């Protein structure tokens, strides 16, 4: 099981839980598992194509991760909005 850490409105969508233990071999599988456990999250992180939204960042054990990044039991996966510019 990996630990998925949520921030901002994602946390309230997941039942006000900051951390969830989820099964999956990749970041994408973990995020699909998150949607199954908490359907309110559907559409917020992955879009209809299954792509991680452009301004969402994922870190696996402190390193930038992508959808296909492998995840092992005990890994810590942070999901958070990107620090993007603009007004």
């Amino acid at each position, binding site marked *: 099981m990996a630990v998925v850490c949520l921030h901002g409105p994602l946390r309230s969508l997941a039942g006000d839980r900051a951390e969830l233990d989820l099964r999956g071999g990749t970041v994408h599988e973990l995020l699909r598992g998150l949607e199954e456990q908490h359907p309110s999250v559907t559409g917020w992180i992955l879009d209809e194509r299954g792509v991680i939204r452009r*301004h*969402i960042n994922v870190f696996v054990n402190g390193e930038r991760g992508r959808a296909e990044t492998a995840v092992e039991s005990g890994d810590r996966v942070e999901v958070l909005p990107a620090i993007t510019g603009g007004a």
Partner: protein
Amino acid sequence: MTELTVGTKKGLFVLEGDPGGEFKVRCRAFPGEPIDFAVRDPASGRVIATSTSPFYGPKIWFADDPGGEWMQAEGVALPEGGEEALERIWVIVPGEGGSLWAGGDPGVLFESRDGGQSWELNAALRQHRVEEDWQPGGGGLCLHSIVPWPDEPDRLAVAVSAAGVWHTDDHGETWRRGNHGIRPRYLPDDVSEDSSPLCVHRMERAKRDPRRMFIQFHGGVYRSDDAGQNWSYIGDGLPSDFGFPLALDPGDPDSAYVIPLTGDFDRVTPEGAVRVYETRDGGQSWTPRGDGLPDREAYLTVLRRAFGQVGEGDSLQLYFGATSGDVFGTGDAGATWSTVATRLPPVFSVTASA
């Protein structure tokens, strides 16, 4: 008391006031979030709003009290596993027979039959977009105008930038184009009508004569007398026939109001003066209406959905907002204007109800 729902770059503002005066901010919702559009549904009394979070994508929300709790609507997405994702919802329009319609990017139409709680994608129009080469306008491939036919819930017209005008007579089961007569100056003359990227900026239908329709085009104002099949140019007499918003007086099928901008090269009010132009003869002549509006050093941009109206006839109320954060209004069909609000975030949309 008139209520304005003002979508801005930094949240939804609900304003209240009486025509001809300054309005008060009754509440603000979604602080920090871009609110593309909001409207109070006359059937349910709910306010329906749409946001496009740069982080979490487009959503539709509904609330009985816009100052209270908002609920996220279901079904606002394209089919999973496709090649495109929903980019933005541009407009929500109460239809006939209790439906609500929502239009967005990439050229999509949704319908709700439960007061905005859940939405279903119109598959037939979507199929046209999948099979045909629709080109986006500068604001994206936006379906921004939805005009029901009074008392006939199966008839509907929509406009897409830049895929032109589309009609259905069977509640969205089939669609046909309606663009004859529109002349895009940004294309060569010999480009075929059905393959042209037609950048309609806004479309409206006259309530008392639904065969009468108006379009503010990307360079050109047009009128149709046959329910949107054929269009005639009516831009003569305007300082510029470029602009985005358009409003009608529901009591007068010959009426239309536009807010000209200098042109597609400089999208601000011409010569630093804010003027609304009114026709009462179907576009044969236009009269500037600016009494009370800024008339010098005012270079405003008014976006396509930032012009709303309520009432009709001599007591028609019109309200428009600019990306400067100013909102202006009239309670006497444009004869006199006043400043309704200032220093709001950039205004994306304005709707009015009373």
